[in-house]
C-alpha cells in the first residue's frame, strides 16, 4: 500500500467514527431517539472501534518485527501473519496463529519454522526433549519435524505471540543447533 493510501484509510476511519458519533448525538438532541438507545449505540461504537484499533495495533507490531528481522510478509490475515526470510544463511518462516480447535485452542502461538527443500530426517526423541518446557525467554509447546510435498521443516511452537526480535533469534538459534544435533541423514533431491 502506498503511503498516501495508508493515510487516507486512517483518516477515513477517523472521520467515519466521528460522523457516526455526531449522527447519534444529533438524533438524540432532536428527540428522534431516547437516551437509552443512545447509550447502547455509543457503547456498540466503542466496542467495534476498540476491536478495530486492537487489530491495527497488532498489525503494526507484526510489521515492525518483520522489518527488524529483515523478513518479508508473505501471507496471512491481519491477526495471523506469515513472514519469511533468511537468518544465518538458513531459510526461516514465522507464523503467528491461534487455533479454533484442539487442546491449545484460542491461545496465541508463534510458530518458528526452519525449512529445507531437500528432505531431511531427524531423531524425534531429541526434538521432543524440549516439549512443554521453558527455554530462555520462551515457553515451548512442541518441536517436531514436518514433511510437505515441496519442503520439510523443523516446527517450533511457542506459547503466546512475541514481538521481540531477540526472543525470535533465540528460538531460531535453538532450531539451528537442533538441526545439527538431531540430524539422522540428508537425502539429496534428484
Amino acid at each position, binding site marked *: 500500500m502506498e503511503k498516501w493510501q495508508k493515510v487516507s484509510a486512517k483518516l477515513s476511519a477517523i472521520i467515519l467514527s466521528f460522523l457516526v458519533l455526531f449522527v447519534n448525538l444529533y438524533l438524540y438532541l432532536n428527540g428522534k431517539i431516547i437516551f437509552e438507545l443512545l447509550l447502547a449505540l455509543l457503547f456498540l461504537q466503542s466496542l467495534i472501534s476498540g476491536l478495530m484499533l486492537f487489530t491495527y495495533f497488532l498489525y503494526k507490531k507484526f510489521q515492525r518485527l518483520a522489518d527488524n528481522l529483515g523478513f518479508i510478509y508473505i501471507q496471512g490475515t491481519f*491477526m495471523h501473519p506469515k513472514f519469511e526470510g533468511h537468518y544465518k544463511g538458513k531459510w526461516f518462516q514465522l507464523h503467528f496463529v491461534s487455533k479454533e480447535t484442539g487442546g491449545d485452542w484460542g491461545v496465541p502461538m508463534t510458530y518458528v519454522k526452519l525449512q529445507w527443500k531437500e528432505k531431511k530426517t531427524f531423531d524425534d526423541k531429541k526434538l521432543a526433549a524440549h516439549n512443554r518446557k521453558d527455554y530462555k525467554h520462551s515457553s515451548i509447546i512442541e518441536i517436531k519435524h514436518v514433511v510437505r510435498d515441496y519442503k520439510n521443516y523443523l516446527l517450533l511452537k511457542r506459547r503466546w505471540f512475541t514481538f521481540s526480535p531477540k526472543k525470535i533469534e533465540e528460538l531460531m538459534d535453538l532450531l539451528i543447533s537442533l538441526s545439527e544435533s538431531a540430524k539422522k541423514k540428508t537425502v539429496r533431491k534428484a
Partner: protein
Amino acid sequence: MAIRNQQKPEKKNELLSKVKKYGFYAIIVLLLIKLNKPLFFIVLFTVFAFIGKQVRSQFGLKMVVLDPLMFCALLLAQFIDIKSAIIYVAINTLIVDVLTNLVSIGSFLNFFLYTLSSVLSVMLFGSMDMLIYGCIGSLMYSVLYFFFRTTVLPDDPVAVTAKSITSFVFTFLYISFFGPIFKIIMMA
C-alpha cells in the same frame, strides 16, 4: 461476451434467492414476536451469543469472555421467566457443545453455574436496580467459576483468572450500556 451474459443472470438468481431467504427469516421473526415473546427473545439472544463467540474465536481471544450469555440469561430471568432463562442457558452451553462434539464436564459445569447465578440473583435481588442484581449475578458466576476451575476441575490458572475477570467486566458493561434499552423493549 457469452460468458459475461451468463454470469449476469446467475448473479441475479443468487441475489433473488438471498432476498427470499432473508425475507423468510424476517417473516419468521415477526411471527415469533406476535405469537411467542419468550421464544423470540431466546432465539435473538442465542444469535447474540453466537456472534460474541465467533468474534472471540476469530480474534483468538480464548481468555476473554466477550459473549453476552450471562447478560442475556439475567434479562430472560427478570423480564420473561426463569424457565426461559434455563432453556436459553441449556441451548448455549449443553446443546451447542453436543452438536459440535465438544461436550465435556466443563459444559455441564457452565450450564450449572450460569443457571444458578442468573436465577439466584434475580430471585433474591430482582426487585432492585438492574445494575445491582446484574453485578451480583455476574460476580457470583465469576467467583464460582474460579473456585470450581481451580479446585474441582483444575485448568490453567492464568486462563481461569482471565476468564473470571473478563466475564464480570463485560457483563457489567453490557448491563450498564445495553441493559436500559433491553429493559424497555422487553417490558413493552
